[in-house]
């Protein structure tokens, strides 16, 4: 008793693709058309590099994007792809994933696409926990439309549409994702390709919506927005890498740490022997309260101040939870199990009929 359709038959009939992929196998025949030097290139590279490792056949992978510079991504992947409309990739991916749960689906979206026009679908994707990977290319600007400030741009941003500086309070994408009950919330950056690669693989292996924010430099309209994290000189004091079960350590010589004083995170120094590793905040990606606190490590106080909080990179939060797509299909299977595959003629007859002679 099943509901086998010609999709199933069709798919089964295809000879399976060769699985000895290299990154190059995922590069399509289309010329890549981002601005030279754009951070999108490294991200593309890392995604292509990660693909052979996820163990999925090429034909079972789909990249879906909205509109924006980032959203051109699918064209460059030699997989199935859809470059859809602005802000709606999450909704399209939801429909595809529910109806084809076996596919590996990757949503590619910019900060405007995800958090401006697409905020609603993004919220609902996250809370439903549809099992897709969501890569949010955050460059704090609208690239494709040539440089207006975006919802993640810090207030005061001078842009084409804010000649006197923006007065919007920026969206914090990770706080938002946690508030929306996202089950996997992580951050990476274009300029640390190794870490980015790890994060892509972690996102892939997480069951549920894996939301990975990637700081991406827009060299043309917002160059240097993340320089303090990507520049090897400032990175040690400005960034902290999260490792499950490990203390929060950073600094040029790993001499700094973060400690919880009650509910207040504080930067401490391990130089003068007052504090050691054992006193520090141990990262626990299952702790939602901690994750929420981490998501708010944002540019305070000013650079240079020794209490300045570093920006966390890595997996802030990960929890196992039902996935919407799995549950939908489980529910359907359950009904089929109980009631059998529906009989169309019975359905057409309905409950009550009469005969006219």
């Amino acid at each position, binding site marked *: 008793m099943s509901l086998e359709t010609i999709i199933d038959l069709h798919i089964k009939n295809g000879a399976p693709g060769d699985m000895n992929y290299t990154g190059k196998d995922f590069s399509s025949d289309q010329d890549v058309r981002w601005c030279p030097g754009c951070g999108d290139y490294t991200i593309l590279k890392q995604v292509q590099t990660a693909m052979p490792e996820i163990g999925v056949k090429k034909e079972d992978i789909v990249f879906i994007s909205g509109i924006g510079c980032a959203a051109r991504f699918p*064209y460059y992947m030699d997989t199935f792809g859809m470059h859809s*409309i602005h802000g709606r990739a999450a909704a399209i*991916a939801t*429909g595809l994933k529910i109806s084809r749960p076996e596919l590996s689906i990757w949503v590619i979206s910019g900060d405007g696409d995800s958090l401006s026009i697409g905020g609603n679908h993004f919220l609902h994707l996250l809370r439903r926990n549809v099992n897709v990977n969501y890569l949010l290319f955050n460059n704090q600007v609208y690239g494709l439309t040539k440089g207006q400030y975006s919802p993640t741009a810090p207030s005061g941003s001078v842009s084409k549409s804010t000649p006197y500086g923006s007065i919007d309070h920026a969206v914090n994408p990770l706080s938002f994702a946690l508030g929306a009950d996202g089950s996997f919330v992580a951050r990476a950056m274009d300029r640390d390709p190794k870490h980015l690669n790890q994060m892509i693989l972690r996102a892939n292996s997480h069951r549920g919506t894996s939301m990975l924010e990637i700081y991406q430099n827009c060299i043309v309209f917002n160059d240097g927005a993340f320089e303090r994290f990507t520049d090897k000189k400032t990175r040690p004091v400005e960034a902290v890498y999260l490792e499950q079960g490990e203390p929060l350590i950073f600094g040029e010589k790993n001499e700094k740490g973060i400690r919880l004083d009650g509910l207040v995170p504080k930067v401490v120094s391990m130089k003068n022997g007052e504090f050691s590793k054992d006193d520090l905040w141990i990262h626990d990606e299952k702790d939602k309260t901690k994750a929420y606190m981490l998501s708010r490590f944002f540019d305070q106080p000013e650079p240079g101040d020794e209490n300045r909080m570093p920006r966390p990179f890595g997996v802030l939060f990960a929890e196992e939870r039902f996935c919407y797509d799995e549950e939908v299909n489980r529910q*359907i299977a359950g009904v089929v199990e109980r009631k059998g595959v529906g009989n169309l003629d019975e359905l*057409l007859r309905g409950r009550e009929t009469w005969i006219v002679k």
Partner: protein
Amino acid sequence: MQVKDQVRDDVTIRFAGDSGDGMQLTGSLFTNTTALQGNDIRTLPEFPAEIRAPIGTVPGVSSFQLHFGSKEIMTPGDECDVLVVMNSAALKANLSLLRKGGIIIANTSGFDKKNLNLAKYGEDNNPLENGSLSDYIVIEVDVTRLTKESLSDSGLSYKDIERSKNMFVLGLLYWMYNRPLDSTISFLNQKFTKKPEIAQGNIKVLKDGYHYGETTEVFAETYTVKKAQIGAGEYRSITGNEATVLGLVAAARQGNIPLFFGSYPITPASDILHELSALKNFGVTTFQAEDEIAAVSSAIGAAFGGSLGVTSSSGPGIALKAEAVGLAVMLELPLVILNIQRAGPSTGMPTKTEQSDLLQAMYGRNGESPVVIIAPATPGDCFDAAFEASRIAIEHMIPVYFLSDGYLANGSEPWKFPQQKGLKKVNVRFEPARNGEDNPFLPYARDERLVRSWAIPGTPGIEHRVGGLEKEAETGNVSYDPDNHQLMTNLRKERVDKIADSIPLQQVDSGKDHGDAVLVGWGSTYGSIRTAVRELMVEGYSVSHVHIKYLNPFPKNLGEILNNFDQVIVPEMNSGQLVKLLRDTFFVPAKGINKVKGRPFFVDELKQEVKTILSEKV
């Protein structure tokens, strides 16, 4: 007193009461019994706009009209012959719909001071007493009291007793129209299997209502409506929304593909979501999305994956889908957009009917983005139209608008349901896998019908990318080439036009294929126009009726047909939309008859308007 039995060709009854009075159920039960008796029948439920307006007030009135007969019945009736009113608000709201000389059956407890005040008659101004109803036959029955008496020994609660008073009315009407009680009795037994005492109570009241008619002397006449001459076969009663659901499910089945339904609730489309969500064992997945944009987008996603993507809405919700439908036009994927039209603009009058979204379906997107448009004519025809919409969407890889409306959605008719074996096949052609073929896969290569193939994820060797940017012919790559854009624009139009090759030619529904005037309609006005035309023909007018189901593309012979008439008259429940398309396409000086009142045409008003137009001409 001897009760006379009269034979009637057709009768229209309207049940009206407070939302809590069970008028919809009463109407449905009468409908079922009547259909089982072999009459032809059409119904029109009318709901209040509020969920539950304060009891006893005019906004809280719910009503159900049914029209049955021994002749062909195509409308729920213009004015009613019998108006049942459970309270004074119901009378106030509905009196204008009763013909002069008609019968009012009034529940007198609904005309106490409190109710009179609530209905804003004023407590000293009882219409049953002030002589204002002298044009009608008023039959006063204290339904509330009689029901209570009937159940005084039942042990049922006050609330349960109150709730069964509609059965008294139903019994009474059954007696009046010589209907048997058995189907209603078995319905009640089934509905209340778990509460047999309630079933028994209801049945008792039903019978007492029947006997009340028999034994009291308030009624001078009963009526017999003989069996109608309707085609032999097995029938069921069906509403438009139900039939729509069946049409979709059947088409997906005939193509052996899953049906993915993404929707966001809205009146009067929600029932489609409700019904489909119960059909999980029919290859149906329903997704209640966060909004209409997500609803249509999810359907597009599913269509990309090989499902029939369907979305439904009404009014403002349809407007919100426009951008994504444009994407589907570019992607060339099977998508059905069900628009159960309601009265607009903006939020408008959600519970009322209208057919004012035709031009929106045709033109309501940015750029040149032609789609297919299909409209059902009757509740049962929703099955065929939904089936056809799905078939065309799948076989032609194209978005199809299905334009039903509130009147079809909730109205019902006897339906000679089809059998699966009689249904068309729906041909799905998935692009096959490739194993290292030399020639590259061309996602936008087309067959002779200009249809591209359905190349779904999971198929090795045909990985490709689609999107909303203009695509290069054949390769589907992004292209800004001027000539390519012209070519693709033309192709998108031509592939719609080509569908005309495979749809049925237009038939003349009633009347000759030439004459003084043809009434051209579409959608839910079918019954009214058909009845009007047939009556006009009997009166000697040279008129015909053409009803268009395929609105884009039009059937190939439509222009030819129209040219055979001196006048083209287009009745629509809008300010003139099809009429514009006809003028533009066929250069005919078509004239509109337009009604925008949230209500279907009355046959009489239609006939009057046609006569006026015909006389103007002379």
